[in-house]
């Protein structure tokens, strides 16, 4: 189904008519600003929208919460602002800019204006390439942008309540230590969060 048809059908389902200018606007790519439901302190709104989407692609909502549910985009913004050194901040922002330029080159539009399938495919492609280099002899000294994003996303998610308690398992007060037991007897058998 192409985008024109999808919008038309959605409008019909919602009982309304989509105006011609609105459709034209969407289809021509002069999009409204992406809507964020949080206010970034370090990143621009556009940058925040980009990293939000990347984070959600890396850890999507499934039958358990995803990166957005767990507040990971906001976490990444504050990590960049308060924890990262100036050098690493610059490296991240430059990487984000290059990421967007690459998206434009590949798809003809900046990342924020691509559709969901294109965004996912793009991130996965870059990720696969970066992993291949990471495992090769040419592994760079500093990780590329996409892996910085992956690392930050995973750090934020698996230290979040949703990540630690639903995707991993977490026991605040174990009470005892059992050193050598079958996996099936170690809680619910998932990886311990801490």
């Amino acid at each position: 189904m192409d985008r024109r048809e999808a919008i038309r059908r959605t409008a019909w389902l919602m009982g309304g008519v989509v105006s011609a200018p609105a459709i034209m606007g969407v289809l021509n790519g002069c999009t409204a600003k992406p809507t964020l439901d949080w206010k970034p302190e370090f990143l621009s709104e556009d940058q925040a929208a980009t990293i939000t989407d990347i984070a959600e692609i890396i850890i999507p909502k499934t039958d358990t919460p995803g990166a957005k549910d767990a507040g990971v985009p906001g976490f990444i913004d504050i990590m960049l602002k308060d924890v990262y050194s100036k050098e690493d901040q610059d490296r991240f922002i430059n990487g984000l800019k290059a990421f967007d330029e690459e998206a434009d080159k590949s798809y003809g539009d900046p990342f924020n204006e691509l559709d969901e399938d294109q965004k996912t495919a793009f991130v996965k492609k870059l990720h696969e390439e970066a992993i291949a280099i990471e495992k090769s002899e040419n592994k760079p000294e500093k990780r590329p942008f996409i892996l910085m994003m992956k690392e930050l996303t995973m750090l934020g998610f698996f230290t979040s309540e949703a990540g630690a308690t639903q995707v991993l398992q977490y026991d605040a007060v174990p009470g005892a230590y059992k050193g050598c037991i079958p996996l099936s007897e170690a809680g619910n058998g998932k990886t311990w969060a801490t």
Partner: protein
Amino acid sequence: MFLNTDAEKENTYDAIVVGTGISGGWAAMELCNKGLKTLVLERGRMVKHPDYPTATKDPWDFPNADRPTQEDLKKQEKQNRTGYTVRQSSKHWFVNDLENPYTEVKRFDWMRGYHVGGRSIMWGRQSYRWSPMDFEANAKDGIGVDWPIRYNDLAPWYDKVESWIGVSGNKDGLPQLPDGNFLPPMELNCVELDLKKSVGDKFGRALTIGRTAHATAPLPHSPQRGTCQFRNLCIRGCPYGGYFSSNSSTLPAAEKTGNMTLRPNSVVYELIYDDSKGRATGVKVLDAESGEQMEFYAKVIFLCASTFGSTFIMLNSVSSRFPNGFGNDSDQLGRNIMDHHLSVGAAAEVDGYQDQYYSGRRANGFYIPRYRNIGNDKRDYIRGFGYQGGASRQGWSSLVKELSIGADLKEAVGKPGKWTVGMGGFGEILPYAENRVTLNKDLKDKDGLPTLTFDAELKENEYKMRKDMANDAAEMLSAAGFKNVVTYDNKIGVGLGIHEMGTARMGKDPKTSVLNKWNQVHACKNVFVTDGSAMTSAACQNPSLTYMALTARAVDYAVSELNKRNI
């Protein structure tokens, strides 16, 4: 000076203890137990058990996944050198380096906790006895000076301290690591059990569970303490009283006697010496909150302010009798800085064990006691090292560099990862007279007091030892069939072991030592120093248990001497 005798009386006690850390807490408790009205002076703020601000928080309660911010690192650059102390959950226990500066001629790592309880809140809790050979080593090797005591002098005090603080461990029957009175040992996990077997079968070496000051059974004599809940958040302080600290154990006991006056925010900066009496009459204190200077008096004084804390007080206590620092006839005060050198060892990946895991978080690892330069083993260096290590299954962080992403990634992290295992050595540093700390009056701290300048480094014996510490670890891991074995040997500063000691050493001869066999200052018999500064050699075992045993023994002697009117 006109003396207001009422004020003087008000400020007079039977005993003064400077410091409330691992040794100060014991001095306070034992002096109070023996009926002495004891003033306990702590330079830092009050911390009362069980008020540890971060102790029961979950991972998501901390900003930035508990990582330090750039602002944090500006204030605690030196405290951050360990790589684990400056976290949102623990940074409040470590000093502000900008307010408490020091000078390092060569890189020197000095980790400090200035509050009631000191580093007994954040310590690693590993508790091993020294063996007879450790006390004999200097005499045998012609190094430094001979210890004025032997293992048998300290054994009854090891007994007393171990039983009282609660040490969980296994009786291993090893001459180089005497057994003690242990609470039930913690378990080794599946991979560690196999490594233990391999190390024993293939090398004839011991691998045992760490001996750690955790209550793995109740301690009826310390009713305010609970048992270890295996949360492994010890560095935050334990509201369950699961491990030994001054706050959870010795200070409550001292308080119960009714004989203790605990005065926090009291920086002792000088001993008051009366040459006509040949004794110290008291201490000078700077109130850290008001800036007021005051004096307190006592018949006997215990310096337990930590190695460099006590040494600072003595270096800063200059008089016509002691122009080079209190009790420093030997010129050894401030010299012979020792520590355990570390950050060297090996790690490996383990194939298999996929269906095996653990539950609970064990705040302890395995221990491989020293085997080098024992019996017929002779290396190109003297003394030796022990290993602390552990095995575990990788968590989510190992998947950053793997292909899975999206829903697949969520599924993959839910499966416990590959087993890995590692061990790092703790090596003995010899006493070198030129490894020293001196007073620096040109750089002042936030209270306007002089600071310390450190000039210490590892030398040939230590560097040769480190080669074995890396290679032996790799060899043992390889022999156990583990894969991708890698060694590491990082550049460190002396002090990184956080076992600094030696700067007011015990010895037989007042010409070459500061303290006698009772931890008494040779030249002033009513002053005792029982923290790490007293140590004559460093051995390779974690030293806190020995500090506590020396303290209990010294208090017993001091009180009997007081009763005999000898001091």
